[in-house]
């Protein structure tokens, strides 16, 4: 089934991390759209442990975005549950940070005001004002020092996504949910943002779950990669990525990187034939 004989893979659910480490636990999750009886997700089991960067990849319409939305508490599951930090996710929670393909910044707010938006909504404008220093530090961390008072219309696409990263981090979430975060950026900016994201995640020991369409992106960033098949959406394969960290983009030309990418591509092709 695999042409890379020593590819570090195993069937779904067999390589569980030690239970104490698990931050996010998805148990036998399913989603059925009653309207047209579509089984979007079927028996999804996955665990992400503290500090782990997990990616999920699969053909269009396999339900990976649905999975992310259920994890974020934005839509209900039909069966099973998502347990974050020991308690089931039953709606939007302040310990979940989320980011989309578009930066979704509010154009009438400065970078700083955009970063503080989640605080303002949850705790009010006064609480947001007390966290200005933290927000400024975050902006400086992503290289946007001096752009605190800039409006989104004055920022490039990559800069806008950096602001969105800060907005996600300002609530100090337990898990980062990333829905194709750099999919709308050009290739060069995307590479730089991937390196940036890797640095931020390792500095903060962040736990992240990313939906992506790009195999190299998933392999470059991730510790573990879930490969999904579609109709019904299932985890077909769990790929452990044992590339050393920190990684820079030269790793993408290494033989091991190529092996893993090739292996994932074969798994995806297999899923597409089913």
């Amino acid at each position, binding site marked *: 089934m695999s042409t890379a004989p020593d590819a570090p893979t195993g069937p779904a659910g067999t390589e569980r991390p030690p239970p104490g480490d698990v931050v996010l636990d998805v148990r036998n999750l399913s989603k059925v759209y009653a309207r047209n009886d579509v089984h979007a997700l079927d028996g999804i089991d996955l665990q992400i442990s503290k500090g782990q960067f997990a990616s999920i990849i699969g053909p269009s319409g396999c339900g990976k975005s649905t999975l992310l939305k259920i994890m974020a508490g934005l839509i209900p599951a039909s069966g099973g549950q998502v347990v974050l930090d020991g308690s089931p996710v039953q709606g939007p929670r302040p310990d979940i940070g989320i980011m989309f*393909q578009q930066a979704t910044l*509010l154009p009438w707010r400065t970078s700083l005001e955009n970063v503080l938006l989640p605080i303002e909504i949850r705790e009010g404008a006064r609480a947001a004002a007390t966290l200005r220093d933290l927000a400024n530090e975050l902006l400086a961390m992503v290289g946007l020092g001096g752009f605190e008072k800039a409006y989104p219309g004055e920022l490039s696409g990559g800069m806008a996504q950096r602001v969105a990263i800060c907005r996600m981090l300002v609530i100090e979430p337990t898990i980062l949910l990333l829905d194709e975060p750099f999919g709308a950026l050009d290739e060069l900016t995307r590479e730089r943002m991937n390196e940036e994201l890797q640095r931020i995640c390792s500095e903060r020991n962040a736990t992240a779950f990313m939906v992506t369409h790009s195999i190299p992106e998933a392999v470059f960033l991730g510790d573990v990669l879930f490969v999904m098949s579609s109709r019904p959406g299932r985890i077909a394969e769990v790929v452990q990525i044992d590339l050393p960290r920190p990684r820079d983009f030269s790793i993408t030309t290494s033989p091991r990187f190529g092996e893993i990418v090739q292996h994932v591509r074969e798994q995806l092709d297999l899923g597409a034939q089913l």
Partner: protein
Amino acid sequence: MSARSASRETGGGPPVTDAGERSGLDEPVVYEEHEGLLDRVPRWVAIIGLAILGLALWQLIVGLELISRILLPTPLDTAREIVDSAGNIVTGGHVFEALWITTQEVILGFVAAAVLGFGLGVLVGETRFGQRAVMPYLVGFNALPKVAFAPVFVAWLGFGVSSKVVMALFIAFFPVIVDTAAGLAATDRDTITLFRSMGANRWQTLGKLKLPTALPFIFAGLKTAAVFSVVGAVVGEYLGGGKGLGELVRLSAQQLRIDRVFALIFYLSLIGLALFAVVGWLERRIVFWHRPDPTDVASA
């Protein structure tokens, strides 16, 4: 365009023979954009030039007595009448009183239309009830010939200012509803999802996201309402008397003083333009993040 025709049209370079062209394939080809003479004229010259041309044509038509001077006064007659009325307005004469009354009607009608239109727009844009039950009535209402209701308002409210205010409101409020609802619906779906993920309640989503998103649309509706409320007030005056500019226009037309009619219409349009300018100024101050569409002539 080939190298041959390019060099011929620019007129530069040595004369090109067929043989030379074949051997000269390495020579750079000069492409020139050809703009017409009219397109190269500066904008303000073009605008003023067109105005002078139009006025000259007008003067010529009347001067050659193609149309009777009683029916169509010359531009100079009209200008004289505009200056006369200006003197009357400055000294607080009857034209000033009429202008003041009509201005009040327009402003009150516009403000009422803005408030009612915005309120109904939010109801229609934000609630399923508004969308499903209220909107069909509003669409049906918009299809009515609203001007035909002017006598009804006069019958209900008399010949004073209030019947004209209601007429202005009646004509002007619908575009504000439609644009407010459209603006609320234009909110980006991902951003709404983001607000949900941040635990925002309905009022926070409305106040911090949807209404600011809708503002450029709302201002577009208000600009339309600014123009329409002048129409409403004048129609109200034509059909319901009173002491406004519309009544003066009607009387002057009855006396076949078309020059005066034109002068009064000039001042009427000033009301609309001034209101339009105020709304545009507010828009630039409030919606500072929104770059207007360069093809939108009205916001230029």
